[in-house]
């Protein structure tokens, strides 16, 4: 164990801090900013230019071209969280599609899509889940049939986040209906403006339309828009699912939430007494603090594993499960300490923190379910992580 960073890294940290001091004013607020707001796009340009977004991606595709260095990545994340400044755009395009294209896309696809995605100009949505295919994603049925140089797509996706704002979709479709279910899927890229696509927003428990239903009727997509080969879509998609699960459960975000709750507790008074003087709330805060730090150090362990090019094993597998749960429980404490004020919502008078904590509380429950539910995570941890026997499969009726 050696917690000291070498001089090179300390210098790097100083650079990040100097950057933040200088440019902080240009950063959009941490709360909701429209995907296409000018402020956000400008901030993304500044980050790309200085290597604080797309740091290790090749220059030719609009990245910064730095050598992969997990420690530097970590330092950037820490310093941005400390300064309460949002990092680069983190959508499904940047976090999931771009790594997939880099790994498996054709040269033409890389050139056409990566730079525009990184700059925030091109927004993507993920068309995986269907009404009948959630946890059992491989049973998806949206069909793509070849007709001349095109695939003709018919079917429906659901729970497609940001589909109503997206320019493009990366979509799983069934191209080989007779193959075993995991081998009949292909991964396609196409514009959301393609004729035959209908997007219907879906309201969620937060009161907003965070996702959509997407209907395809005879949607024609050139066969060149496939990533990987026909029937390889499951493998291609799994490359991105790994990226998604890593993205949910950021320990630095949990730490900054914890600090905000401590601030609320210092500032709120009941019958003239600060909530921080209430031993019960304080105990819950410190218990959560221990969990947050455990996850933060777990994250450092993952960083070291990645520097050493080793698998982090169980320490990596639990991140999505524990991280989302922890965030949910942090929001729960924030609501509890606010008491009745904690149930205020939307645009209510007397609202605290823009009602953010209720939104977190609900949305984090959504994240416990989405991207591989908690129960599916536990299956993966026990079966793949602990080598326990798999549940017997039930044959199709």
């Amino acid at each position, binding site marked *: 164990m050696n917690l000291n960073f070498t001089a090179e890294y300390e210098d790097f940290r100083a650079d990040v801090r100097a950057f933040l001091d200088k440019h902080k004013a240009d950063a959009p607020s941490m709360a909701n900013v429209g995907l296409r707001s000018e402020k956000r796009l400008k901030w993304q340009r500044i980050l790309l230019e200085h290597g604080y977004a797309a740091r290790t991606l090749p220059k030719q595709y609009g990245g910064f071209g730095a050598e992969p260095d997990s420690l530097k990545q970590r330092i950037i994340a820490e310093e941005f969280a400390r300064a309460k400044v949002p990092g680069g755009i983190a959508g499904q395009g940047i976090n999931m599609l771009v790594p997939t294209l880099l790994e498996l896309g054709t040269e033409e696809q890389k050139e056409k899509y990566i730079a525009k995605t990184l700059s925030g100009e091109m927004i993507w949505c993920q068309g995986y889940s269907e009404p009948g295919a959630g946890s*059992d994603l491989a049973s998806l049925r949206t069909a793509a049939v070849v007709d001349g140089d095109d695939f003709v797509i018919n079917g429906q996706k*659901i*729970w497609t986040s940001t589909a109503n704002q997206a320019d493009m979709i990366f979509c799983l479709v069934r191209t080989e209906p007779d193959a075993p279910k995991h081998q009949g899927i292909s991964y396609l890229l196409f514009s959301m403006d393609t004729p035959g696509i209908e997007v219907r927003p879906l309201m969620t428990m937060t009161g907003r339309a965070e996702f959509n239903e997407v209907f395809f009727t005879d949607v024609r997509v050139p066969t060149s828009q496939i990533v990987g080969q026909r029937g390889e879509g499951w493998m291609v998609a799994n490359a991105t699912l790994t990226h998604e699960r890593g993205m949910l459960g950021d320990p630095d975000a949990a730490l900054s939430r914890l600090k905000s709750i401590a601030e609320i507790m210092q500032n709120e008074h009941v019958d003239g007494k600060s909530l921080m003087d209430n031993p019960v709330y304080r105990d819950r805060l410190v218990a959560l603090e221990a969990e947050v730090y455990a996850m933060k150090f777990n994250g450092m362990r993952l960083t070291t594993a990645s520097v050493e090019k080793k698998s982090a094993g169980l320490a990596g597998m639990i991140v999505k499960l524990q991280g989302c749960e922890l965030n949910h429980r942090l929001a729960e404490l924030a609501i509890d300490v606010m008491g009745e004020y904690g149930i205020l*919502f939307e645009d209510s*008078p007397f609202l605290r923190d823009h009602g953010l904590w209720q939104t977190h509380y609900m949305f984090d429950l959504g994240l416990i379910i989405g991207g591989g539910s908690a129960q599916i995570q536990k299956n993966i941890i026990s079966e793949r992580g602990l080598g326990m026997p798999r549940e017997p499969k039930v044959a199709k009726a």
Partner: protein
Amino acid sequence: MYFGLSQDQTMLQDSVQRYLESASELAHVRGFAEGDNSLAESLQNGLMELGVPLVLVPEEFGGLGLGVLEAALIQQAMGRFVSPTSFTSAYAMAVIGLREAGDDDQKNDWLGRIAGGSAIIGVGLTEAIGAREGAGLKLSGDKVSGRASFVMGAELASHFMLTAGKELLIIARDSAGVSETALTTIDKTRHVIMLDLQDVPCTVLAGDAVAAQARMIDIGRVLLAADSLGAADMMIEKSVAYSKDREQFNRPIGSFQAVKHMCADMVAKLEPCRSLVWYAAYAQDHVSDEAALMSRLAKSHLAEVGKYVARTSTEVHGGMGFTDLLGLHYWFKRIGANRQLLGGPETVREEAAKLQGWS
């Protein structure tokens, strides 16, 4: 020993449940949540016809003279159908306030008006539990000024019963000097408001208002616990039904142990709560030395178990639970609001410890 409901009590609950099942179906609740107040009015009229609001009004004032257990069973049915009614405040807490602290004239006058349907009294006792932001009312002569926060039962209230320190008073909603701020909470099935009063004329209840407020809070909490019990019951039923219906991996999701165990855990936690709510409600009328404690245990425990059921049931429903499509969130949020109203669990447990000389 017989620990259970009488036939009359079961029949009472069944009849309210049967009425609400159609009168307060989800489509109507949605309409109310979206701003159409007519459901509150039609439920008020329908329940009045059934005599439901008058359970706690003594017979001599035109009521049914029943107990808190009956009131809790009714409230449970309302939680089950997330019904927009102001039963807890208008027909339990306010009635109890009058019974405990009204003199004969006040009882005659107000309980008579309640029974006749001409007075619906919302309740603001938040500051008797814990005041934030310096809220609170001050009485000077027969005029009252200040702020009452999180006043319950604002859907149809014609009057409000409010705490002003050691006094309990009633104001008319339409008096000069009353300014209302509507609050938006997660729970769109009930309305709570802030009241800012400036020299508002009021009726001060003549009796021991401190004791009366304590009783009102005890009983109000039992009813919020019963409401969460009813809401949680429904969430479990919906989860079980969904898990039999929804298929993934060529089998009903209910055949996965993970899902079965979620449902079994919900039931294992909730079933004892039913008994706790019954006992706590019964104690309000029949076991006076345990009434205050049991109310606090029921309120705080249902806050915890309710939260667990709300969350777990949503998980059983997968992405569907997170959407608005099934409306499951109305139950989730009702339970979430019940947790905080009239004191969050930590506050209530601390009071319970104090009651027993442990703190």
